[in-house]
């Protein structure tokens, strides 16, 4: 579909999708709802995730034959932007981008297709467990080890930073084996699966998943190449950057509005030049982020990049979005003054969500490093 639609057709479709996403988000995803779900177990509403699925949003990126819509990242970004902007804690990126992206790259088969169908209809909510306890970001070195044992597999290890943790219906344990990357599908609550929640700034949590010699049947085993695994993670990194852009845009806009209305010394504080210039710097960061993300999304959708080029785009996008969002959060609080650091005022919800989402899958600093590792400085790069 991406190949055949003209640019103009696609941009019309994107506009329609944006309208419906905005309408849904403002009608069904209130900030009050987000506030109430903080600290709950699970910290999201599975029924709402099913509603999102009903909109077709969990299957957006999946091929039509698997119950999805076969759309691109530009479409996914439009939806993710609306959902993230309303601070919905439902794990759209972890499920519909990360887990779905990994699964759809595994060899076709009954188990895989059922999981993907479940993601598309909202009945399956898988959490991918792959990072080790210190947050390693190398997809070729996932947290678990797996060995063939009899008809099935034996898995051991501990993963951290798993989203969703509580509320997940399945966990996909990414493991090293002699042959490469294995994916072991384990139902939540299975015997031998230990889950510990770690609370995040925004009232959501990440899970630590540990297993020790857990037996997994052969039919719950999927496998994919390290490059495919990495590709799926890069897609989640990019869509995570889209979430951060949604957050920073709203924090910046709230601040812009506040500067116009808050009066001190007989004037709106937005008339003070020092604040004006700082507000402009935030605007510039937002526009840089948007431009960078759009370029990356277009490159992903064009599909002509090498693995390293995709990783470079993803890292650039995440580095910019995370840095800009953290910067915007700080300045938004400062320019709001006291009210900016209260729980009651909505800004703090955005700040705390930013604090949780910016480090996920690697913070700005980690992604800048990955970018230059992939693209080291060399002489003669111009002329």
């Amino acid at each position: 579909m991406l190949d055949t639609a003209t640019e103009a057709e696609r941009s019309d479709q994107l506009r329609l999708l944006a309208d419906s996403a905005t309408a849904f988000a403002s009608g069904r995803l209130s900030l009050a709802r987000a506030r109430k779900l903080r600290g709950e177990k699970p910290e999201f509403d599975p029924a709402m995730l099913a509603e999102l699925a009903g909109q077709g949003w969990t299957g957006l990126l999946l091929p039509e034959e698997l119950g999805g819509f076969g759309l691109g990242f530009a479409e996914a970004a439009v939806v993710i932007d609306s959902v993230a902007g309303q601070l919905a804690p439902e794990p759209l990126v972890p499920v519909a981008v990360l887990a779905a992206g990994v699964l759809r790259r595994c060899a076709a088969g009954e188990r895989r297709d059922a999981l993907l169908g479940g993601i598309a209809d909202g009945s399956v909510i898988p959490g991918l467990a792959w990072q080790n306890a210190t947050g390693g970001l190398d997809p070729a070195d996932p947290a678990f080890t797996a060995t063939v044992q009899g008809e099935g597999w034996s898995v051991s290890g501990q993963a951290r930073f798993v989203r969703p943790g509580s509320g997940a219906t399945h966990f996909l344990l990414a493991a090293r084996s002699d042959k490469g990357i294995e994916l072991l599908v384990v139902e939540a609550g299975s015997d031998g699966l230990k889950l510990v929640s770690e609370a995040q700034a925004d009232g959501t949590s990440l899970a630590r998943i540990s297993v020790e010699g857990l037996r997994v049947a052969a039919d719950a085993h999927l496998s994919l190449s390290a490059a495919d695994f990495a590709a799926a993670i890069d897609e989640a990194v990019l869509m995570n950057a889209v979430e951060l852009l949604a957050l920073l845009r709203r924090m910046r806009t709230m601040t812009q509005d506040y500067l116009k209305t808050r009066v001190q010394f007989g004037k709106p504080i937005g008339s003070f030049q020092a604040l004006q210039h700082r507000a402009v710097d935030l605007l510039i960061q937002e526009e840089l982020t948007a431009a960078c993300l759009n370029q990356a999304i277009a490159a992903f959708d064009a599909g002509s990049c090498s693995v390293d080029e995709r990783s470079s785009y993803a890292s650039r996008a995440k580095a910019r979005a995370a840095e800009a969002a953290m910067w915007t959060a700080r300045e938004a609080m400062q320019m709001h003054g006291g009210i900016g650091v209260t729980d009651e005022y909505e800004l703090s919800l955005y700040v705390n969500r930013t604090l949780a989402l910016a480090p996920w899958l690697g913070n700005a600093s980690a992604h800048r490093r990955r970018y230059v590792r992939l693209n080291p400085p060399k002489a003669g790069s111009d002329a």
Partner: protein
Amino acid sequence: MSAVTDWNALDDDSFRQQVRSFFRANYPEELRYPKTRLRWAQIRDWYLTLSKQGWLTPAWPTRYGGMGLEPSKLIIFYEEIELHGVGRAPDMGITMVGPLLIQNGSEEQKDYYLPKILSGEHIWCQGYSEPNSGSDLASLRTEAVLDGDEFVVNGQKTWTTLAQDATHIFMLVRTDKSAKKQEGISFLLMDVTTPGIERRPIRNLAGHEEFCECFFRDVRVPKANLVGEINRGWTIAKALLGFERISIGGPKQSQYAIARLEELASHLGLESDAGFMDAYARLKLDVLDHAALYTRFIDQVRRGEKLGSDVSMLKVIGTETYQKISQLLIETAGSAGGLVDDVEMAGEDFDWLTSYYNARPATIYGGSNEIQRNILASQVLGLPS
């Protein structure tokens, strides 16, 4: 209890030693270096211990029950508090109301209030800021209208630190709406249980409740609770900002935060990561140089000199350094940077978000850093307005 009362006669080292020994012997170990502000229930015993020792009010004159310390001794006393990580008790009575009454209060006011601060019977909170009067404090609108022998107070205060633990509140209120904004303000004392006062805790973004909003609806306060002359409250309150102005610019918070960063870095073996080390080096030198500048001002105090407006720069650079350290802490935590409270990293627990959260209001309260820069621009650099 110590027999010595003329502390100033001791040499500095002996004095420091006595203070240090007392803290070590008496301050509860589990309350050292508290990560957030302690509540009255936690710190009450220590408050009373200090009171019994006669050390609750080191800066008050001896005849009011203070230690009567001269500046150089006072500095040592505070240094030892910081070194030992002694938590801050509700000290508005000690640092604000006491000195203010001693300077401006009537004899009745002094006789009644000062002993009750010493005994811990009265715990004070400060009612200055209002929702629409933050940086522009003098625009405050909470009004006190004289009705016979009573003021009738209506309005709202906010950012009232630990008002939920207080028994009394001291306030700036507007008593003349027609005067220029600084000239219609009076200084008023109030029992927080007076009918018509409602306190509502403000939850901050870390989920803690350090501040309150206070609502005043037809609150009747005896005229005798006015401190100093009517409509002179602004001058009275401003005169207090002496030692306070330097303590808000101290290096303690940054030093504490960078120690946390050093622990994390050394635990993670980041000494060999030149990228981390470059970022760390900048902040470490900021902390050290800020402390050097702080010492310059402290020496001024020690010599008995008055502090000028330039002391504002301590707060600006100190709080911003603190914030930068808190940001590097989160960054150093990597993928775990969004986890709250104590977080396990390679076998040990670290807490970075508390530093981040605590560092936020530091550039806002006590005169925002924007206001401090305005002051420095006009009063130190002489730039035109």
